C-alpha cells in the first residue's frame, strides 16, 4: 500500500488503471441495460420482466464494481476489496430487512384491507 515513489504517476493506484476493463464494463453494462429495457417494452419478454430486470441489474452492478473500481486481492487493492465486502451485508440488511418488515406489517394491518378495495 505504501510507496516511497517520487513520481505520482508511478504510484500503484495509478498503475492499476485498466482501459480494457473500462471498455468491457461499458459494453457489458450497456448491453444489460438494453436487455432490461427490452424486458419492460417487449410483450413477449414481460412474463419474466421482474426476474430479468433484477438479474440484469445484479450482473451489471457486479461487473461495474469489479472492473471500474479494480477490486482484487493485490497488495494495492486488498483493503478496498475487503471494505467493500464488509459493506455488502450492511446494504442487504438495510434494504432487505426494511422491505421484509414493511411487507409483514402491511399483511397484518388495515393496509392489506385497503389493497383489496
Amino acid at each position, binding site marked *: 500500500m505504501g510507496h516511497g515513489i517520487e513520481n505520482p504517476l508511478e504510484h500503484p493506484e495509478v498503475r492499476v488503471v485498466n482501459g480494457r476493463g473500462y471498455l468491457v464494463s461499458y459494453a457489458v453494462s450497456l448491453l444489460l441495460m438494453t436487455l432490461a429495457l427490452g424486458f419492460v*417494452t417487449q410483450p413477449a419478454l414481460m412474463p419474466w420482466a421482474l426476474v430479468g430486470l433484477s438479474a440484469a441489474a445484479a450482473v451489471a452492478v457486479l461487473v461495474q464494481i469489479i472492473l471500474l473500481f479494480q477490486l482484487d486481492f493485490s497488495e494495492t487493492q486488498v483493503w478496498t476489496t475487503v471494505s467493500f465486502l464488509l459493506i455488502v451485508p450492511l446494504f442487504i440488511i438495510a434494504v432487505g430487512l426494511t422491505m421484509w418488515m414493511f411487507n409483514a406489517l402491511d399483511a397484518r394491518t388495515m393496509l392489506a384491507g385497503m389493497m383489496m378495495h
Partner: protein
Amino acid sequence: MGVSATTASDSGKAGLWAQHHHHDAISTRTLGFWLYMLSDAMIFAGLFATYAVLSHHYNAAGGPTPHDFIHPLYAYGETLAVFTSVLAYGGAMVALRRGHKGGVLAGLGLAFLLGAVFIGMEVNEFSHLLSIGISPERSGYLSAFFALVMTHGIHMAFGLLWMATMFFQVAFQGFTDKVVYRMLNLKVFWHFQAVIWVLVFSFVYMRGVL
C-alpha cells in the same frame, strides 16, 4: 508481534495486516475517500429501502404512479449519457497513467459534457413533471421517487463541479501528488454514480413501467 513474522509470511499474497510498508498520501487518501463513498452508499441504501416501501400503489394516494409518467426510452437515453461519461473519465485515467496531459484534459472535457447532458435531461424531465402537477408533496410515493432520483442527480452535479475544478488543476498545475490523488478520488466518485444509476434505472424507471 514481530514485523519479522509478518514479512516472513507468504510474500506472494497481500497481507491484510502487513506492516512492512509505510503509508503515503496517495494510498491513504484514496482508501479514506473510498470508505467515505461506502458510507455514501448507505445513504442510497436508506433511500432505496424507503422507495421500496413507498412504491406500493396505495402510497400513491390516488395520484400518479410511475406507470403513468415514466418514459423508458428517455430513461435509457439518460443511461447512455451516464455510462459514456464514465467511459470518457476512464479514458482520462488511461491518459493519466501515460502522463499524457492532453488526453486527460480531453477525457475530462468529454466526461463533463456527457454528465451535463444527463443533468440537462433530468432537469427537463423534472420540470415537465412539475408542470403537470407531479411533485414531491403529492404523495408518499412521489416524495420517495423525487428524493431518490434527485439525490443521485445532485451527486452528478457536484461531480461536474469537481470535474471542472480538476480540468483547471490538471491544465495549470500538472501531475502533482495532490492533483493525482484528487483525480483518483473523482474517478471513484464518478464511477460510483454509474453503479447507483444502474439501480435507479432498473428498480425505479424500468420496474416502474411494469
